[in-house]
Each structure stands twice: as structure tokens, then as C-alpha cells.
């Protein structure tokens, strides 16, 4: 046998690592992409929340301070998130009590930490239905529900590393990257899938490289605990020393002397004036103590994860403190900031969404390409290989099944009664149970029917979602249009667009892949070739 060339070796690596890791990567890409519209999905999943009129940062801070002073005067820390940008549409307050002496007598404080949303018109607590919302979906892409945290982290690292490998080998084996730059030849089966795979990858390659590489950087120290050994020595405490030096975290000590919290709204007004940018957060350590510290954060139009920052003492006088800004920290913040895209305005957010979708399409088309390359030969055999059939079935059950299951998660949000206990968990199990059922279904059903029927199912589910809103809640598409609630409208339109996409897919499948009917699978295989 002739020894394989470098490109052939890389091709094998690309094909097989791609195949093995692709299904979970597809899951990560779908849920991660939805993360770029997490706040909008949150809004859709708690429709009963009253839309908030715009409010100045000072007024919002005053409301929050009044609430915290009244309900949590003894907390160790207050945190106020002001309604300022797309990422924080609500006024939210958080509190945390010291672990050891947390207040046992007062039943309201039995929880060590908590948070509520406040209605900016009344200052009262704003309560929506119990749901994991878009946040839960977004967190799935790195928490991988149901798996212990550390295991999930390691699994994620492994998959991300192979994703990076697949991207790099993919570039190496692409034969005519410039010649075929704009090539898409539809209706040519395997050729078309290869074109689509190449096109989606090449068009969004910078994004895919960035998102994969930065995904690894998130848990950098967990994946490479030995990076510090050279200068800091071996051992858990040495590693901690290294982490503390890069990301110093100082302890703020309580002085046990009463000193009322200054008027936070005034401090916020000053900060806003100084920065000429919206103030986003106010943090009070040891409120009501003379050792208290107030940290104010502001939006900064950069890709970094951190914005403006200002530290003040118990009486509101400035402390000369800055956030760590060494080159590695800035690099770290920049890379993570790029991954999360929290800085992105509506247009750039659209591009993030598009790039995520292209990544999802890239993985899906790669998987389909693998099967498509082998299909004709496999179907000529009296019995297709079990491995091939496994790929075919997992493809149908995941590439079409997962979006359908996510649609059912949204449907559960509208169908499960609002008053029901544990409804958030029920919504979440709706996703996994339905995905499990769909996988079972695709394991049993003839594969030709599977793709078509599942696409039809997805189209139906997403078509029902706006209707379910219309029936079950007051805040439906038309309400959103009338009240300019664009987040809600956007999500509803997204569902309609998904319906249209799956309908087109189903139609194409029907045209190009005739249903078996009375014919045997073998015959349908030959008719498949005839239509191609």
C-alpha cells in the first residue's frame, strides 16, 4: 500500500474526529448560539412581566437602596444591577449574608443569598413565572445538564480541543479554498453537501476559530494546571497563589462601627457624569459599617468584559483603587469578552447569531456529508453496516430532533400552568424527555421517513409557538407590535422563521428522497439515485 500523503492523513483525522465529536458539538453550538439572544428569550418566557418605562440610573439606584435598606440591612454585600443596556433590561438587586452568622431568626433571610427584580414604577418586587428561561438554555452549552461540574468541564475541554483540531485540519484538507470560495452547487447531493460544509466554514472561519479557542481559554487553568509549576512550584496551594496574583481578590474587613450608607443615587449620578456612559452596577460591601466599600461599574464600548470602575469608602469618598490591568488579564478579558459578545449592539448581535448559525450548519452539513458519501454504496448492500445506520439515525435524531426538542421546551413554557410547583424543572425535562423520545423514534423508523417526518414535526412545533402565545398569554406577537416590545416580537418572528426553514427542508426532502411506501428500501435507494 502506498504511504498516505500529509493531506490524506489530515483528511482521515478531520473525518473521524469530526464524526465522533460532532453530535455533542452540535448541541453545544445550538444552545450556545441561542445564548446570543438569551435576554430576549428570557423576556419571551416571562411574558407577564410589566414592560418597564425608561428610568434614570439615579432614580433606579434610589429605589434599589430603599428596598435593600428595608429588607436586608445586615447583609454582607448588596449588588444592584441597573437597567441600562440590552443585557440588563430589569432593575435587579442581589444580597449575600456572611456564611457563618447568617440570620436564623428572620425567616426571610434563611437563604444565604438571593435576588429580586424590582418594578421601577412602584419599587415593588416584580414576579414572573418560574422558568429557567433563555439563561438555562445558554448555560447548557457549557454546563451540559446532568453531569457533575468538573466532569462537564473536562468533557467540554476535550470536545473543544477536537473542534479546534477539526477546524485546522479542515483548512489543510480544503483543496481549492480560493477557487471554490463562492461555490455552492445545489441539487448535486454529496457535492452540494461538501459545498455547503466548505462555504459555511470558510465564510465564518474567523468566528469559529475565535469561539473555539476562547472556549478553551475560559477554563484555561483547569485544563492546564501545570502552567504555573515553573515559577510557582507544584501543588494546589501554589496554583492558588498564582491565580491570586493574576486576579487579586482583596478581603474587605468589617469594622463593627455603624455608619449609615451614603446616598448611592448621588454617587451614581457623579460617576455617570464623569464617564459620560451609563452606570451599570453598584456594589456595597458591608453596608452600614464604617469599613464599608462601594464599587460602581459603568459600561464601556469595548470588547473587554470589564467596563469603567470606581471604588469609594463608607462615606462616599473616592479610594484610589483600580481593577487588575496587567497584559495577561486584559488579554484574558478581551478573549472572554469576544466569546460572550455582551458588548454587541443589535447589529453586531445579529452577526454573532449568524456566525453561530453558520457554525451549527457547518457541523450539521459535515455530519450529513459523511453519511451522504457512503449512502449509495451502503444501500446497495443487502444489509447496511450497523455503524452507518447508527450515524444516519443519530443525525436525524439530533440535527432535526434537537431543534424540535428545544421547541417543545418553549411550548412547555406556555402550556405548564403558571401556578404549578417545580414548573421550571418540568420545562427542562420537557426538552430532554422529548429529545430522548425523538432519538428512540429515529432508531426505529425507516430512515427515509425519519428525516421528513421530524422536519415536519419541527416545523409544526415552531408554527404552534406563536399560536400558543396567542391563546395562553396576553403578550403575543400583536401585543408586542402594539407596545413596541421588540425582544418579544423578535423571538416570535424567530419562531416563524424557524417554521419556514423546516418547512422548506421538509419539502426538499419530499422531492429528493421519495417515501418508501410499498417499495422496499433497496428500490427506493435506486430511485434516489435516479432523482439525483
Amino acid at each position, binding site marked *: 500500500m502506498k504511504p498516505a500523503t500529509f493531506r490524506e492523513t489530515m483528511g482521515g483525522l478531520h473525518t473521524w474526529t469530526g464524526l465522533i465529536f460532532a453530535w455533542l458539538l452540535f448541541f453545544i453550538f445550538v444552545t450556545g448560539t441561542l445564548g446570543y439572544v438569551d435576554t430576549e428569550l428570557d423576556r419571551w418566557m416571562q411574558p407577564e412581566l410589566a414592560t418597564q418605562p425608561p428610568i434614570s440610573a439615579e432614580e433606579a439606584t434610589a429605589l434599589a437602596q430603599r428596598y435593600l435598606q428595608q429588607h436586608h440591612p445586615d447583609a454582607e454585600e448588596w449588588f444592584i444591577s441597573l437597567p441600562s443596556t440590552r443585557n440588563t433590561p430589569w432593575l435587579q438587586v442581589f444580597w449575600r449574608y456572611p456564611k457563618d452568622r447568617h440570620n436564623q431568626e428572620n425567616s426571610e433571610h434563611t437563604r444565604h443569598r438571593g435576588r429580586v427584580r424590582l418594578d421601577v414604577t412602584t419599587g415593588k418586587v416584580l414576579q414572573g413565572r418560574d422558568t429557567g428561561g433563555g439563561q438555562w438554555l445558554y448555560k447548557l452549552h457549557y454546563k451540559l445538564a446532568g453531569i457533575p461540574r468538573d466532569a462537564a468541564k473536562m468533557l467540554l475541554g476535550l470536545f473543544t480541543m477536537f473542534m479546534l483540531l477539526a477546524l485546522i485540519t479542515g483548512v489543510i484538507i480544503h483543496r481549492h479554498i480560493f477557487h471554490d470560495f463562492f461555490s455552492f452547487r445545489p441539487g448535486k447531493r454529496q457535492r452540494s453537501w461538501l459545498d455547503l460544509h466548505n462555504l459555511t466554514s470558510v465564510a465564518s472561519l474567523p468566528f469559529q476559530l475565535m469561539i473555539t479557542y476562547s472556549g478553551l481559554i475560559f477554563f484555561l487553568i483547569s485544563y492546564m494546571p501545570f502552567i504555573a509549576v515553573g515559577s510557582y512550584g507544584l501543588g494546589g496551594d501554589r496554583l492558588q497563589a498564582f491565580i491570586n496574583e493574576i486576579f487579586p481578590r482583596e478581603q474587605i474587613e468589617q469594622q463593627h462601627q455603624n455608619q449609615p450608607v451614603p446616598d448611592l443615587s448621588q454617587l451614581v449620578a457623579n460617576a455617570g457624569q464623569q464617564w459620560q456612559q451609563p452606570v451599570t452596577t453598584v456594589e456595597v460591601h458591608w453596608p452600614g459599617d464604617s469599613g464599608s466599600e462601594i464599587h460602581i461599574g459603568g459600561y464601556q464600548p469595548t470588547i473587554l468584559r470589564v467596563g469603567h470602575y470606581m471604588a469609594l469608602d463608607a462615606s462616599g469618598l473616592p479610594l484610589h483603587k483600580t481593577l487588575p490591568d496587567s497584559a495577561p488579564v486584559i488579554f484574558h478579558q*478581551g478573549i472572554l469578552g469576544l466569546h460572550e459578545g455582551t458588548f454587541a449592539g443589535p447589529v453586531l448581535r445579529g452577526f454573532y447569531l449568524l456566525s453561530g448559525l453558520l457554525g451549527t450548519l457547518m457541523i450539521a452539513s459535515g455530519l450529513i456529508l459523511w453519511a451522504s458519501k457512503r449512502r449509495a454504496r451502503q444501500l446497495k448492500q443487502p444489509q447496511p453496516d450497523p455503524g452507518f445506520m447508527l450515524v444516519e439515525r443519530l443525525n436525524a435524531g439530533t440535527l432535526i430532533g434537537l431543534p424540535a426538542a428545544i421547541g417543545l421546551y418553549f411550548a412547555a413554557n406556555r402550556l405548564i400552568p403558571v401556578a404549578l410547583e417545580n414548573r421550571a424543572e418540568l420545562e427542562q425535562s420537557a426538552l430532554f424527555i422529548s429529545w430522548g423520545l425523538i432519538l428512540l423514534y429515529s432508531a426505529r423508523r425507516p430512515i427515509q421517513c425519519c428525516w421528513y417526518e421530524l422536519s415536519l414535526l419541527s416545523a409544526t412545533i415552531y408554527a404552534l409557538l406563536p399560536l400558543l402565545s396567542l391563546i395562553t398569554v396576553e403578550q403575543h406577537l400583536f401585543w408586542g407590535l402594539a407596545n413596541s416590545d421588540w425582544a418579544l416580537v423578535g423571538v416570535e418572528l424567530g419562531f416563524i422563521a424557524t417554521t419556514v426553514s423546516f418547512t422548506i427542508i421538509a419539502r426538499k426532502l419530499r422531492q429528493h428522497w421519495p417515501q418508501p411506501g410499498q417499495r422496499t428500501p433497496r428500490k427506493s435507494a435506486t430511485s434516489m439515485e435516479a432523482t439525483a
Partner: protein
Amino acid sequence: MTATVFLLSWQACVLLCLAMPRHCMDMLPGRRLNRLQQRGLQLLAALALLSAPVLAIQADGPGIGLACWLGILSLVIMAQALLLAWRPKWSLWGLAGSLPLLTVVQF
């Protein structure tokens, strides 16, 4: 400014495609461009392609500007490939129609 960056990037794509014999046949059936014409188109495309990120950086700073430009590139590459597959002539009309727009669009 985003609109200008978008137009420039897309026009660069169309020009590049015109310089490629296969796509040129799709857009202008029966027409073959000579080597000089192809080089000229590529030069124009390079100009447009390089001025787009400069404008984007001027508008939004290096971080957000470049991120935005890369997003726009993904969009125009996909759009151009799909146009070539189904409506090849539209990209030519689009190019002709959008050139004068460059002088007005500024947001």
C-alpha cells in the same frame, strides 16, 4: 457606517467573482474577460476589501470595528454564494445599483 462597510464588502465579493472565469460565465453568459480585465477587477476588489475594515475601525474602534467587519464578511460571502447559485445576474444589477449608494450612505 455599517451600511457603507457592508456595501463595500459585498461589492468586493461581486468584483472578485467577476474575475473568476467560472462565476463570470454565470453572471455574464458567453463573456470571457482577458487577463488584464481580471487583474483590474481584483485590484478594485482589493481596494474595496481593504477600505471596509479601515472605515469600520474608524467608526467603532479596533475591537468592535473588526468584529463587526468580520461579521459583515460572513454575511456577504454567504449572500454572494447563494446569489450565484440561484440568481447570478442579481449580483451584477446589485453591484451597478449600489455603486452610487456609496456616495450617500453614511450610517
